[in-house]
């Protein structure tokens, strides 16, 4: 009997133990290096100097808010684009399979490849510039690569993540029974009211899941930023990598502070966004 109760936990070991061990070691490494332990350059000792040093840098906060801004914009735009499309494709019609296959296609394209395709497309010799010049809209090609407002990065994030949002939302939109919608219609609810009172509340969880996933991915982005991002500011991941490799003596400790802040941004930022979404949906439902 006792053995039977233990069985499921024993079965969990091979899959769950590596994950828990690896994650706690890696996060533990980052946290302890940020407070002066596992020092590669000198003696281990508890110290908050790396935290004080990093958090008093203007540059750090610029980078922090930059990544936060990219993450918020990317997740909101992706979800806002994906939602109406998912509603439109709720019930199949001729051609709907083709469209959802087309929407999902970017999921199969590697982030670095996407960044390259994009930069190639908007570059000075790229298709877009050539087309604009040929159409007579501009005299000379426009410089769009690595724009300083990071519009390129947001476009790439949306391009890559809108399909993800679409997949997550589609599942929950399709799960809404027709009977619920019919009942709402019989009670005299117009299409806008049905959206506000029935569809949105029922798909809230999926909306939040999509927001959280995209926010975390965009906040920790490296590939898009390095290839297509502005040259006058770095993302958190890029900044962390640079601090680690440039500042020989205490690079690891300072990078660890950035890492902990990035984890905090991912966690609290995405949860806040999900919470706000819940508030808005509740408000609208009233």
């Amino acid at each position, binding site marked *: 009997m006792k053995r039977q109760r233990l069985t499921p936990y024993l079965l969990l070991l091979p899959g769950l133990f590596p994950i828990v061990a690896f994650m706690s070691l*890696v996060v533990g490494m980052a946290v302890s290096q940020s407070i002066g332990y596992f020092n590669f350059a000198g003696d281990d000792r508890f110290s908050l100097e790396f935290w004080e040093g990093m958090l008093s840098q203007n540059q750090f906060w610029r980078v922090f808010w930059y990544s936060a801004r990219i993450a918020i914009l990317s997740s909101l735009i992706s979800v806002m684009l994906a939602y109406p499309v998912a509603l439109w494709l709720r019930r199949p019609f001729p051609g709907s399979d083709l469209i959802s296959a087309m929407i999902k296609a970017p999921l199969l394209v590697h982030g670095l490849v996407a960044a*390259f395709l994009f930069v190639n497309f908007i570059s000075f010799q790229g298709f877009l510039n050539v087309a604009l010049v040929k159409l007579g809209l501009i005299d000379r090609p426009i410089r769009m690569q690595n724009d300083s407002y990071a519009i390129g990065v947001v476009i790439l994030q949306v391009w890559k993540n809108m399909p993800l949002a679409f997949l997550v939302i589609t599942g929950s939109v399709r799960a809404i029974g027709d009977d619920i919608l019919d009942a709402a219609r019989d009670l005299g609810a117009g299409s806008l009211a049905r959206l506000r009172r029935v569809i949105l509340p029922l798909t809230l969880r999926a909306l939040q899941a999509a927001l959280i996933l995209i926010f975390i991915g965009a906040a920790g982005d490296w590939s898009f930023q390095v290839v297509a991002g502005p040259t006058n500011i770095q993302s958190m991941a890029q900044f962390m990598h640079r601090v680690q490799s440039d500042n020989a003596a205490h690079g690891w400790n300072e990078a660890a502070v950035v890492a902990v802040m990035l984890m905090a941004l991912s966690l609290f930022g995405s949860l806040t966004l999900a919470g706000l979404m819940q508030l808005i949906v509740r408000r609208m439902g009233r």
Partner: protein
Amino acid sequence: MTTLSRSTLFWQRQLLILLALAVFFVALVLPFCMAVLWSLVDPSTPWAYPAVLPPVLSLRRWVEIWTTSALPQAMYNSYTLAACVSILTLLLAMPTAYAFGRMEFPGKAVAQMLTLVPLILPGFVSAIFFSALLIELGLYSRFLGILIGHTVGLLPYAIRLLSVSFSMVRQDLIDAARDLGASRMVVFRTAYLPVLKPGLLAALIIVFILSIEEFAISYIVGAPDFTTVPTILYSYLGYNFIRPNAAAVSLILVVPNVLLMLIAERLLKSADPAVMTGKG
């Protein structure tokens, strides 16, 4: 009245489909055509300002990349690594997935949440501090390091996919086989295997692809001399930027994976959305 609204609905729909096709064309087809065009630029005749189209096209660049770049080595590294990662991941995931798919026990929900943790840790945080860990442990084998990193990072996908497969095995079939006195092996073959097989294959392929595509750990742990296909693409996009070569390597990274993924999706007709996510 109804016919009228039906036909406007029809035209609306056609218009929207056309719009979707146009967006798809601009966002995906055109950029890929550009990449193909760039990869065909003849190595000895530059495509320079003010030429609008490349002056000479040839396949010579593909030959040259294959013979002079580290691409064959990178592909060998990527593919052997991915094979090891996918087998190891599946072996580790199976017992756990069985417990999630076919058993009820206290703490199951918490355990399921815990398996998803690697998905929410930013990739570069885990890559950089995993490499710190490797330095601390004195582990110099990059292959082993990346193998561990990929296996742990991809376990959540395998566990989720296989849990679904295990939960679809029908208890009445298992009971019937047992009642007929079948041995454990026979029960597994007749009741489990047919249901598990597509899920297993799909999980194998998906983990394989995600391992090939993984960039952060491969780059941080593997640098400078253990290259995989994404890290070589990164070097062609950064320090060694030569646009036509980057175009060719991009195509090499994307095309085989798309084909594999299409097979995986066939296998997983009832695909769970969250596990189909590509990591960039």
